[in-house]
């Protein structure tokens, strides 16, 4: 079931008299192909949850349309959209057992969707097995751990075979170890059911790791849509570049003079057919290569050992970040005695951005 959003907008009237309205979602158009897992990504307050709630029907859009397949569901109340939603803090009914929580949506089905008692029970046990909580059916939510409650919430959302599954920051309440495990669970469940799923998160690592496609948003405006790897390797603007990737991208003040990119005084890389201008330069930590004769020089602060790789922490006058962090494979030795280090840069790990508009400037090497 593909989901189509056509210039979806949502404006919250500002309660204080004077202030103007808040545009939570601004002209968002996007088609989510059937059976795909899409991550809505962005800092808090960027409109991702609002979008989710509009798709779900709990929020009424100020403009634009939402289609499930061919049906225009924009004005349809949530119960008629065939939508499953998993809340950030699960919202499991405290007074019902796990089984009753999962059964509840099935009992509401009416008309030709109505199921017999046995079918409902069969479907419940089935989905409980799917999320591996079939042994907790008679427990009360208060007796379960965060992870278990998360899975019950997912089971409840899935049991009525919704056309679209929505998850609102599903992992934010879990501890680190459980987050990784549950992330995989969600991926596995989505793959098995093949249900179109949209989930909202502010954690870019989480989105990148399991989404088929990601949508990066900022202040209600879509910055970029695409496969995680593509968006990572080909950021549309400086914001997207900075938002994705841990450790974050290093950003420098640079200038293009006569087809050559200068960072500070170092001529770092030839950039053909780029008009002379001041530019912002983004270099991925894994884009540095240790090289005594490398064009770029930095002053070493320290080296952090991370097992397979080593991270060199240095500073450079032209860097906008407090430190310049590079990731080098642990084999090559780092001689810190001289206090400076020289790098050469992998071209595909270096991005140029327009100084004011921060738009990406493509270049050939």
């Amino acid at each position, binding site marked *: 079931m593909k989901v189509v959003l056509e210039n979806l907008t949502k404006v919250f009237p500002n309660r204080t008299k004077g202030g103007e309205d808040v545009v939570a979602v601004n002209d968002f158009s996007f088609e989510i192909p059937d059976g795909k897992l899409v991550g809505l990504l962005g800092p808090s307050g960027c409109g991702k949850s609002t979008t989710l709630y509009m798709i779900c029907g709990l929020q009424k859009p100020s403009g634009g349309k939402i289609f499930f397949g061919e049906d225009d569901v924009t004005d349809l109340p949530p119960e008629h959209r065939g*939508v499953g939603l998993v809340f950030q*803090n699960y919202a499991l009914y405290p007074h019902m057992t796990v089984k009753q929580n999962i059964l509840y949506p099935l009992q509401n089905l009416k008309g030709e969707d109505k199921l017999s008692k046995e079918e409902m029970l069969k479907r419940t046990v089935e989905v409980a097995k799917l999320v591996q909580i079939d042994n907790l059916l008679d427990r009360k939510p208060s007796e379960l751990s965060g992870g278990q409650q998360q899975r019950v919430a997912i089971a409840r959302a899935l049991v*009525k075979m919704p056309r679209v599954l929505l998850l609102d920051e599903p992992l934010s309440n879990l501890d680190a170890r459980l987050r990784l495990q549950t992330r995989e669970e969600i991926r596995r469940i989505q793959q098995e059911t093949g249900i179109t799923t949209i989930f909202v998160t502010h954690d870019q690592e989480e989105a990148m790791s399991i989404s088929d496609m990601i949508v990066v948003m900022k202040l209600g405006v879509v910055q970029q849509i695409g496969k995680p790897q593509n968006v990572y390797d080909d950021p549309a603007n400086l914001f997207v570049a900075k938002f994705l990737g841990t450790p974050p991208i290093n950003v420098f003040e640079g200038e293009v003079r006569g087809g050559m990119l200068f960072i500070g005084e170092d001529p770092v890389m030839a950039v053909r057919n780029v008009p002379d201008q001041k530019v912002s330069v983004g270099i991925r930590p894994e884009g540095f290569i240790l090289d005594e004769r490398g064009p770029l020089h930095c002053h070493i602060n320290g080296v952090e050992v991370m097992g397979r790789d080593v991270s060199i922490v240095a500073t450079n006058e032209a860097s906008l970040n407090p430190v310049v962090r590079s990731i080098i494979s642990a084999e090559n030795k780092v001689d810190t005695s001289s206090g400076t280090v020289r790098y050469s840069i992998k071209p595909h790990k270096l991005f140029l951005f327009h100084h004011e508009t921060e738009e990406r400037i493509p270049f050939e090497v």
Partner: protein
Amino acid sequence: MVESKKQWKAWLYLAPALVLLAIFTVWPIFNTVRMAFLENYSGLKAAGGETFAFGIGNFKKVLEYKKFVNCLKTTALLCVATVPISTLLALLISVALNSIKPLQRLLQTIFFLPYVTNSIAIGMVFAAMFNIVGSFHGTQNEIIATAGIVNNVIEFFGGTAVNWINSGSSYAANITVMIIYIVWNALPFKILILLGGLQSINKQYYDAAKVDGSTRSRILWRITVPLLSPMLAYVIITGFIGGFKEYTSIVGIFGATMGPPDDGGRLNTMVGFIYDALSTNSQGRASAAALILFGIILVVTLINLAVSKKNTHY
């Protein structure tokens, strides 16, 4: 050491309340128990120097009273009828109030009004509303000066007038009037508590229920009521405790005869019985009746606690 120091401090905080309670609540209870076991004890006779035998004569006298069972029946009937009705109405009104924005403040204030008014006036007003002025009901000479406001409204909607509280009125009609009046009085407090409870329920459960596609009534019975159950249990328990002590409301409508003119005493309650005993200064009998009433309320409250314990959630 810390443990005992804390003990001492706790009792210090409780001291003022305990002292006052001892004098003005505990001692009267013991005195009541004492009077109950002094056979036909009367305060005035005691003041005149008379002494009284110790025994359970008072209790026997109370149980012998022909209409004692009737008092019990009326008290229980009113209680069993008004507590559920007023709780249900209060629940529906609170849920309705909670679900609207415009007019919410105004309606909330209106529903609180009865709590603010003096009960003397309200009794008279209700009596005037249900009272048929006229005579010879049931005979061919029947004369009706006015059938009372409620009957006028009923006739306006095409119904036939009912003889609510006048001579010849049925027990059922009398009880109905009492139920309406008691529920009317009990609503404000119950709405206050339940509305308070509703506002402390997390909004997300309702979003979840909407997404799960439940209808309005299912949301009410499967989500709101269970989440409100501690409040509901409290309102029902106090409702019963108050309900068993019903008396002033009956005097408000039927006056001292505690019943229609042709069957005075038909609606007398347990507390009514206590007042009758006090009017001839027989405090012994009144105390015995009060202890019996206390016993009944205690049992009912224990049952209520057990029942509510089972289905109160989280």
